[in-house]
């Protein structure tokens, strides 16, 4: 067995979250991969089709991964029925390092499907609630119908998190926020100087959200982002996911804002 060998996992359950997004519950057929830390990803192999990097959306005794159908491989993964086998390699990359934020207020800011890799962080923080101050989960999405894990948000609220959702395009009957996620930053019930932020979503969304948080007084050193590039090997061997001096599969995907900011505004990286 090498790090390039896919480990067989059976799809134990398949839940259609959105029109194009499913969450798969995965069980090892034999020896499992190591337990992923929140923020890490696996390379998921649809046999005979190909391999893609997929965020872990629940870790621990139950492994869940949330996949959006955007191409041939993710389409095949999304269509995998319960009982069928997928291959996993990993887990790869850096995690959110929640322990380093113990004692601080937490801001978790997600854009679109960026909520998937933040979900295990939310669950970990709520499971160890007394270790953190206030927890604010800020979510930006396109429309109300595109809101991921909508059925879980009230439970997060009941367990002590402030959860705010904003949409770009409201639908009739929507009574929540409308606008860019930066509009929620001022409403986060946190003490900015004593907070840590974890941000995941489209790169521009992450940049402006981090800037808004820092503008509110959150220390830049306590802001972490999850970057996305074309991960292939997951091991830093092939170089496909290079971002300047970084290989995102190995040095990321979770990176300190201060380290990645200078790279985010350079064209062609």
């Amino acid at each position, binding site marked *: 067995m090498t790090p390039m060998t896919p480990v067989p996992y059976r799809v134990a359950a398949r839940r259609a979250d959105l029109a*194009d997004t499913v969450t798969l519950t995965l069980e090892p057929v034999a020896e499992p991969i190591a337990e992923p830390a929140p923020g890490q990803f696996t390379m998921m192999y649809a046999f005979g089709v190909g391999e893609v990097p997929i965020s872990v959306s629940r870790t621990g005794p139950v492994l869940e991964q949330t996949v959006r159908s*955007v191409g041939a491989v993710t389409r095949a993964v999304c269509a995998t029925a319960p009982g069928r086998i997928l291959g996993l390699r990993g887990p790869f990359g850096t995690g959110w390092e929640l322990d380093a934020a113990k004692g601080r207020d937490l801001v978790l800011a997600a*854009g*679109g*499907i960026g909520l998937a890799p933040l979900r295990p962080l939310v669950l970990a923080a709520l499971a160890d609630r007394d270790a953190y101050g206030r927890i604010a989960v800020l979510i*930006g*999405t*396109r429309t109300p119908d*595109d809101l991921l894990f909508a059925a879980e948000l009230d439970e997060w609220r009941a367990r002590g998190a402030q959860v*705010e959702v*904003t949409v*770009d395009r*409201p639908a009739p009957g*929507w*009574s*929540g*926020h*409308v*606008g*860019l996620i*930066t*509009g*929620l930053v*001022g*409403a986060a019930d946190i003490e900015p100087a004593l907070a840590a932020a974890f941000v995941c*979503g*489209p790169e*521009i*969304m992450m940049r*402006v959200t981090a800037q808004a948080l820092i503008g*509110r007084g959150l220390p830049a050193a306590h802001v972490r982002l999850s970057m996305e590039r074309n991960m292939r090997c997951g091991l830093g061997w092939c170089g496909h996911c290079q971002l300047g001096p970084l290989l995102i599969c190995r040095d990321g995907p979770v990176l300190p804002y201060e380290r990645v900011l200078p790279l985010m505004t350079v064209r062609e990286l």
Partner: protein
Amino acid sequence: MSAEGMGRVTAAEVARHPFFHGVAGSRVARLATAAAVEEIPAGRRIFEEHEVAEYFWLLRSGTVALDMSVPGRGTVIVETLAASSVLGWSWLFPPHRWRFGAVATGPVDALRFDGRLVRTFCAADHDLGYDLAMRFGTLMLDRLAATRIRLLDLYARPGERP
């Protein structure tokens, strides 16, 4: 606007809102004389598009929706303003008329400022006027940037991107 739910405002209350952080104490005290606490019940319309713009609000809690009446579609919400936001800048610029409507989507606690009075303060004290113009200019810059980023449709599916 009725006086229902209105109350006097101290300089400390004005200084506490993030929008006025860093304003000199004497100026905060002057601004406080133009302010009142306003409790706005959920669902109440705060102003209508085209009406004379006489006030601005510093939201302390609650949410306000900015909207516009679109023929055939009814009243469409273009943006919401969450707690700690600023509502209203048309009071500052001619022709002093609202370009959108505003309605409280939940109970709102706000500081309401008399825009005409604040304009007279600014005319008499250009440093205060410059400070306020910079603060409202920064606010407008942030809202414009946010609107432009929404135009990018960042969360669109690959085949639907503009």
